C-alpha cells in the first residue's frame, strides 16, 4: 500500500460506491458554514473596531431596521431545506433502505460482543445455520448449531472481515451483549447494533485494500481496542481466502469441533489484556497470508 488511507486534515479516502455523495455533502455543508462564519466574523470585527468607545464617538440611538438579516435568515433556511430534501434524505434512503437483491450480494452476519467482531459467512450453500444464544460460549462465539444442515459449511472468523471488491454486500448486524456501533471509516458505514434486534445494512466497495472496523459506541473497558480487520480483495483472492478458511474450520470433517479462525481471543479472556497487545496496524501482517497478493493487485490502476 503506497498511500496512507487516513489523513489528518479531512476525511479518510472513500472506497465505497455510496460514500462520494456523503463526502460531497460534507464538503458543501462546510463551505456553507465557512461562508456564514467568515461573513459574521468580518462584520463582528468591523463592529468591534469601528464602534469602540473613544473620544468623539457616540452611540447611535436611532433605531434602524435592517432588512438584510431577515433575507439572510430566509436564505439559510432555504439552503438547509434544499440540502435536506434534495441531498441528505435521498442519500439516506439509498444508503439505508435500497437493498440489493440477496442473490446478487454477499450476505454476512456480524455478531458483535465485548470486544470483538464475529463474522459469520453462510458458506457455499448461501444459508446461515441456526444460531441460538444458549449455544454461545468461549469456543462458539455466534452460538451456531452445527447439527443444523445449513450450518455444516458456515465459516466463522473473529475480527477478520473479508469481502470481494465490486460486489454488493449485505451485513446483518446483531449484538450479544451491549450496544456496539459497526463503523468502517473508509466505507462511510456506521450503524448502531442494538441487542435484541437484527439490523441489516448494505454497501459495496470499489477498491481493494486492507482497512479496519471500529466500534463507535462506548461498549465497556475494551471499547478502544474493538478493532476488526476489514479486507477488500479481488474475487479470486476472496475465493482463495474462503477456501483456506473452509479447510481450516471444516477440513477435518468433524464440523462440530471446528474452531473459529485466528484473530484476537474471545472477549472474556482478554478483558484485562494490556493495550499494546493489539495495536497492530492493518499492514502489520496480523492477517491471513492469502490476502498479501490482493493488496498488490489492489494498488494497480
Amino acid at each position, binding site marked *: 500500500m503506497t498511500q496512507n488511507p487516513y489523513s489528518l486534515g479531512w476525511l479518510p479516502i472513500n472506497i465505497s460506491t455510496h460514500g462520494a455523495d456523503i463526502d460531497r455533502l460534507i464538503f458543501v455543508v462546510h463551505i456553507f458554514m465557512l461562508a456564514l462564519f467568515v461573513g459574521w466574523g468580518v462584520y463582528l470585527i468591523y463592529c468591534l473596531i469601528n464602534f469602540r468607545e473613544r473620544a468623539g464617538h457616540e*452611540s447611535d440611538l436611532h433605531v434602524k431596521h435592517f432588512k438584510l438579516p431577515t433575507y439572510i435568515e430566509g436564505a439559510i433556511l432555504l439552503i438547509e431545506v434544499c440540502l435536506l430534501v434534495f441531498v441528505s434524505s435521498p442519500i439516506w434512503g439509498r444508503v439505508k433502505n435500497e437493498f440489493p437483491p440477496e442473490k446478487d450480494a454477499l450476505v454476512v452476519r456480524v455478531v458483535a460482543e465485548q470486544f470483538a467482531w464475529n463474522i459469520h459467512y453462510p458458506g457455499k450453500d448461501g444459508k446461515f445455520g441456526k444460531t441460538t444464544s444458549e449455544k454461545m460460549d468461549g469456543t462458539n462465539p455466534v452460538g451456531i448449531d452445527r447439527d443444523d444442515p445449513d450450518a455444516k459449511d458456515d465459516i466463522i472468523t473473529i475480527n477478520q472481515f473479508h469481502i470481494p471488491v465490486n460486489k454488493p454486500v449485505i451485513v446483518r448486524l446483531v449484538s450479544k451483549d451491549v450496544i456496539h456501533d459497526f463503523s468502517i471509516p473508509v466505507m462511510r458505514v456506521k450503524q448502531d447494533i442494538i441487542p435484541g434486534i437484527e439490523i441489516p445494512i448494505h454497501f459495496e466497495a470499489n477498491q481493494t485494500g486492507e482497512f479496519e472496523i471500529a466500534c463507535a459506541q462506548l461498549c*465497556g473497558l475494551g471499547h478502544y481496542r474493538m478493532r476488526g480487520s476489514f479486507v477488500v480483495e479481488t474475487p479470486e483472492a476472496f475465493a482463495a481466502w474462503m477456501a483456506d478458511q473452509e479447510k481450516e474450520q471444516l477440513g477435518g470433517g468433524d464440523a462440530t469441533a471446528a474452531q473459529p479462525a485466528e484473530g484476537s481471543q474471545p472477549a472474556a479472556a482478554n478483558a484485562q489484556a494490556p493495550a499494546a497487545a493489539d495495536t497492530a496496524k*492493518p499492514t502489520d501482517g496480523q492477517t491471513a497470508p492469502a490476502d498479501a497478493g490482493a493488496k498488490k493487485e489492489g494498488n494497480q490502476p
Partner: protein
Amino acid sequence: MSHDSHGHGGHGHGNPLADAMEHYSHLSFWRKYVFSTDHKVIGIQYAVTAMCFLLVGFGLMLLMRWQLAFPGEPLPVIGKLLGEALFPGGVMSPEMYNQLGAMHGTIMIFMGVVPLSVGGFGNYLLPIQVGAHDMAFPKLNMMSYWVYFCGGIVMMLSFLMPGGAAASGWTSYPPLSVIASNAQSWWLVGMVFLITSSLLGSVNTIVTAIQLRVKGLNFFRFPVLVWAQLITAFLLLLAFPPLEAAGVLQLMDRVAGTSFFLPSGLVVSGEQLHVSGGGNPLLWQHLFWFLAHPEVYVLILPAVGIVAEILCTNTRKPLYGYKTLVYSMIFLGFTSFIVWAHHMFMTGMGTTLSSFFQATTMIISIPSVIILTTFLLTLYGASIRYTVPMLFAVAFLPMFAIGGLTGLPLGLTASDIALHDTYYVIGHFHYVVAPGTLFALMAGVYHWYPKVTGRMFNQTLGKIHFWGSIIAINGIFMPMFFMGLAGVSRRLYDQTTYAHGKVAQPLNVVMSYAAWSLAIMQLPFLYNLIVSLWKGEKVAAENPWGGTTLEWATPTPPPHVNFPATPEVFREPYQYNSARQIMPQFSKEN
C-alpha cells in the same frame, strides 16, 4: 402596589420590610448563611458549589488528557498517588478512563453548568430583576439547594465505591449501564436527587417570575435574562420527569432484576444473562434524549440572557429586536421537545422518521441564527466599552456560532453517517457549552461581582484570564473537528489501536497542552475572585456599570429584602434618553 401589607399578622406597626430585615439580622449564623431562606444566599451557595464541581469536572478531564496525549505512559507524580488499583504502575487503566469520562460529563452538565446558570444566576438575579423581595417559596428554595447538594455528594462518593464510579458515559446507555458495577446505581440515585432539585427549583422560578413581578413589569418589560430563566424553568419542569422515570426503571433493572431495558437472550462474556428479558434498550435512549435535548437549551438560554444583559449595558444602546429575541427563545424552547431523536439517527431509523427529525433540527437552527443576528446588530452603531465581562460576552458570539454551525452536518442524516459518534460531535457540543455557555457564565460572574460582593475585581487579571482562556479553549476544541473528520470514534481510551486514530494522534497532544494551559489560565480568575473579596476596591455606587434593570436599583450589596422600598417599573429595559444617558426601568423621569 399595596399587597405588601397583607398577610402580616404579628407586627401591627412599622414597615414590614424593615421588620423583616430586623428579624433576619437576629438570626443565628446557621440560619443566615447555611440553612438560609434568602434567595441571594442560596444563589451564592449554588454558584460556589457549582463552580467547585466545575473545577472537579475540569480536573477529571485534565487527567484524561494525559492518557489521550501519551497513551500508556505513566502519569507523572499523580499516577502514583492515585493508587495501583486504578493506575497500575502509574498508568491510567481503561476502567479509570471510562469513569473519568462518564463523570466529567455528568458533573459538568448536571452538577456544574446548570446549577450555576439556573441555580446560581437564576436564584440570585431573577427575583431582584422582577422586583421581588424573595422567591415565592423560600423554604422550598432552600430545600432544592440541599437536595442538589446531597445529589452532588452521592455522585462524588461513588468514586470511593469498590470498582469506582459510573463508567458507562454520561448517557448511561443500557444494557452496558445495567451490567456495570455498583457505582452505576449510585449514579442513578444521584441523578434522582439532582432531578428532584431541578424540579423544585423550576416550580419556584416560574411562580416567582409570573406572580411576584412588581407593578409595571408586564411580560414584555422583562429583562431578557428573566425570559431566559422562565423558559428554562419550563424546559426543566417538563423534560426532566421522563428521565427521572427512566432513572427509576434503570435502577429497578439493576437492583430488582427487572428487564425494562434488557432484551431476551443476552450473553455477556460467554455467560447467559439470567433475566426475564423482553425489554428494549432503545426505550432508554428515547427517554434520555427527551430530556437531554431540551437540556441543551437549558444550558444555552440562560447564557443568552446573560449575554443580552451585558451587551446592552456595554454598547450603550437599546437591544436590537427585543421582541424578536424573546419570541425566538420561546420558539427554541418549544421546538427543543421535538428534535431529540436526531441523537439516534444511527440506531436503525427509517427514512420517514429520520426526515422528520432532520426537518425539526433544521427548523430549530433558525431561531438560533436569529438570536445571534440580534446580538450582532445590537453592536451596530454602538459605543462599545470593553470591560472584562463585555470581552467574554463578545467572545460568546463567534464561539456560539461555531457550535451552532457545526451542528449542521450532524443534523443532516447523510453527513451524520460519517460524523456520528466521532470527535466532531464532541467538538460541536463543547463549542456550545464551554466557550459558549461557560464564557457567558464567566461574563456573568464578572458583571455582577461588584453588585454581589460590594467589591470590584482586578481588571488586568480579568483581561489576562480572558485572553488566555479564549486562545487555549480554541486550541482544545478546534482540532476535534479534524479528528472527527478523520473518523476517530469518541470515548477511546487509546486511539492509536486504530490506524486512523494513530494518524490523528498528534492532534491529541495539541489538545492536551491546550487543556493544561486553560487550567493555568483559570488561576488568575480564581485568585481574582477570592482575593478581591478583601482587597478589591469598594463599590459604593448602586449602579457601577450603568445597567437599566432592577438589580441596579438595590443597595450594593443588596440587603436581605433586596429593596428597602418595593420598586415600580416604568418602561422596557435597555432604554436611553436623547442625551445618551440610561433610563433605568425603575426611574420615573424621562
